[in-house]
């Protein structure tokens, strides 16, 4: 029993973080893809596109951070 209790530390749950990083990784890639496509279509709107892209990236990054942060609650 004690060994299992020791095994459930934050560090042993890090593979779960890696699984949680898959989704935001794909999402951030898609955001970059969309921004590059938009930039190719409309190069003069680069400032507006970059601003909104960073905003979307931050929202997406939050999902990854949430997965990382929840592991610290599992002590």
């Amino acid at each position, binding site marked *: 029993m004690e060994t299992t209790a020791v095994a459930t530390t*934050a560090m042993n749950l890090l593979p779960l973080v890696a699984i949680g990083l898959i989704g935001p990784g794909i999402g951030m890639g898609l955001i970059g893809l969309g921004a590059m496509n938009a930039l190719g279509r409309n190069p003069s709107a680069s400032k507006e596109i970059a601003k909104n892209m960073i905003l979307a990236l931050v929202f997406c*990054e*939050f999902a990854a*951070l949430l997965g990382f*942060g929840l592991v*610290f609650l599992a002590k």
Partner: protein
Amino acid sequence: MQFIQTAHAATTEGHVGPHIPSLMGDPTGLFIAGIPVTTTILSTWLFMIVLFVGVAFFYQAAKAKKANKLQAIGIDVIKRLDALFSEAMESHELSRKFLWLVWGFFIFIFLGNIFGLMLDVIGIVMPAALGYIRPINSDINTTLVLGLTIIMVAQATGIYMKGFVRQYGHYIFNFHGDNLMEKCISVFVGWLHFIGEFVRVISLSTRLFLNIFMGVVIISIVVYLGNSVPYTAGIFEIFTFPFWLFELFVAFLQSYIFLKLSGMYLYESVEETH
């Protein structure tokens, strides 16, 4: 007030690996009226001293009759913040209405993040001080207060502008639509909005907290990795510097996101619902 009794817990943890801080501030061993003083509270007091002295200098410069450099810097900062927030709120009049709150929070969060990064530099010079200081936004309590204040002010503004019944009737009895089906959907969406107000507090505070907290974790991991290369006497700790610069960018980005989101929420509280 008792004085320092024990050494900090972080040095006596005794596990191998980078030091991962806890979600809330660590106790320093100080007590005020029986309440333990955490590392975050000590750092916040330190930051408040720095901030108030800086604000006093700018105030003196702004009151001065003849133009000086500090006055020019202050005017420039305020102009930039005005442009930033007018853009986020999409209205100059509305942005002026909430400038006291949102600009204050922006300055507090941004300078607090920068101050937290400066604490890393202090930690390099004086490792023993790390038991008493900690970046102020890497504590969930600080950011929770910031998020709660924004949402409470938004709700209070909504009640003031639209009245209690219209503000909360919009959430619970939202009979908007042409036919019965649309009305049913509107009621459900209104309930979702009501839950969303609580989710906003969590997302606003957790986003800022987790970003800064992950910065602390990443920097401590890189310092540990740099130290663990044999026969180099920790020279690879220099690779912390790019991460530190990235954290400077994150410090600005997160305060900007906070400004943008709080602008959005405050704008929703003022606008007429249909």
